[in-house]
């Protein structure tokens, strides 16, 4: 699935309406992309509060800079790029906070992963494991395997080269396999 697979009034039409002064038309863009991008933000940042902060910031920044969206029909891809950057910023701020208040959170999280193989246990395990990845590897893994973007699309969003992204994805997969096995044995 590409970034811009949407139905209804096109992104370009909505962008033009907003630029023509119909601010309410932006609500259509918010409704269109909130869930898709919200999922990425939650998976990237690990909690809904930070994800909503990053996503709201991305929407507002996109609105303010809407005239700089060079291809309105690809508004979704443009917005996604803004969100990727916001997640990096919010994630970095959170990491600083956590270093102060929760120095051993990974160990705490690992201890809380149940042994059972049921669906909820696997959900907790994969979410925990994804959270252990480095931000750059996590970002590449989510864009590739969860958002199912092509490497070219990922390059556009992240600014990283295809070869660098492939290496990050491979490392992320290797690390996740190891972490899932580790969680299973705890």
């Amino acid at each position, binding site marked *: 699935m590409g970034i811009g697979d949407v139905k209804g009034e096109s992104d370009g039409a909505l962008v*033009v309406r*907003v*630029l*023509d*002064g*119909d*601010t*309410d038309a*932006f*609500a259509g863009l*918010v*409704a269109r992309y*909130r*869930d898709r991008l*919200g*999922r990425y933000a*939650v*998976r990237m940042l690990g909690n*809904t509060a930070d*994800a*909503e902060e990053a*996503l*709201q910031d991305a*929407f*507002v920044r996109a*609105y*303010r*800079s*809407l*005239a*700089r969206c*060079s*291809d*309105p029909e690809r508004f979704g891809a443009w917005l996604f790029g803004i969100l990727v950057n916001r997640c990096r910023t919010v994630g970095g701020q959170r990491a600083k906070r956590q270093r102060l208040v929760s120095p051993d959170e990974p160990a705490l999280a690992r201890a809380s992963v149940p042994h059972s193989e049921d*669906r909820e246990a*696997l*959900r907790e*395990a*994969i*979410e925990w*494991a*994804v959270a252990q990845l480095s931000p750059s590897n996590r970002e590449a893994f*989510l864009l590739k*395997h*969860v958002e199912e973007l092509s490497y070219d699309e990922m390059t556009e969003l992240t600014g990283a080269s295809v070869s660098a992204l492939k290496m990050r994805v*491979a490392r992320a*997969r290797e690390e*996740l*396999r190891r972490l*899932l096995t580790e969680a299973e044995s705890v």
Partner: protein
Amino acid sequence: MFERDEKLDRGVELLKEPVHLDPGFDRRVMAEIASAPRPRAWVRPIWAGIEWMRRGRPVTVSPLGGLAMAAGVAAVLLLGRSWLAPGETAPATATTAAPGSVVQFVIVAPAASTVSLVGDFNDWMNGATPMERVAGNGVWSVTVPLEPGRYRYAYLVDGTTWLSDPSAPPALDDEFGRPGSVVTIGEL
């Protein structure tokens, strides 16, 4: 491509499941946007010019035409001041396309009721090439098919006031003594 891992694959499928944002999320976003400065819309007509080029239509502009294009960005900004709301600026562009294709003329005149493009290509007839208001903040635009050549043109605001692009090549040879500019399309 990737080494298969059933557990990891099942985990990825779980990560693809929808997340649930706060029901008030959209409202919060729109509330913040309502208090934000409105995005500037005048850049949008330039996209059309970019689209023409992206579609592979060759653009041929003589040095004089290039001057006219560049000049248009600031030209009406100066002379169109009387049609602007206080504090507003008025960028404008005249974009050329391939010989035999179209030229886009754009000006910003928020307080104008009508704007027409007049020039050699329409015998300077008021109303023959009306410009359309394309943005809420007073952007007027029209596209005109033009063969290669040199054209004098001006903007006619509210049917009475003539505007040229002041930093574009002036039409010094206007026999009627009205302000006008020159755009050159193709190689002469």
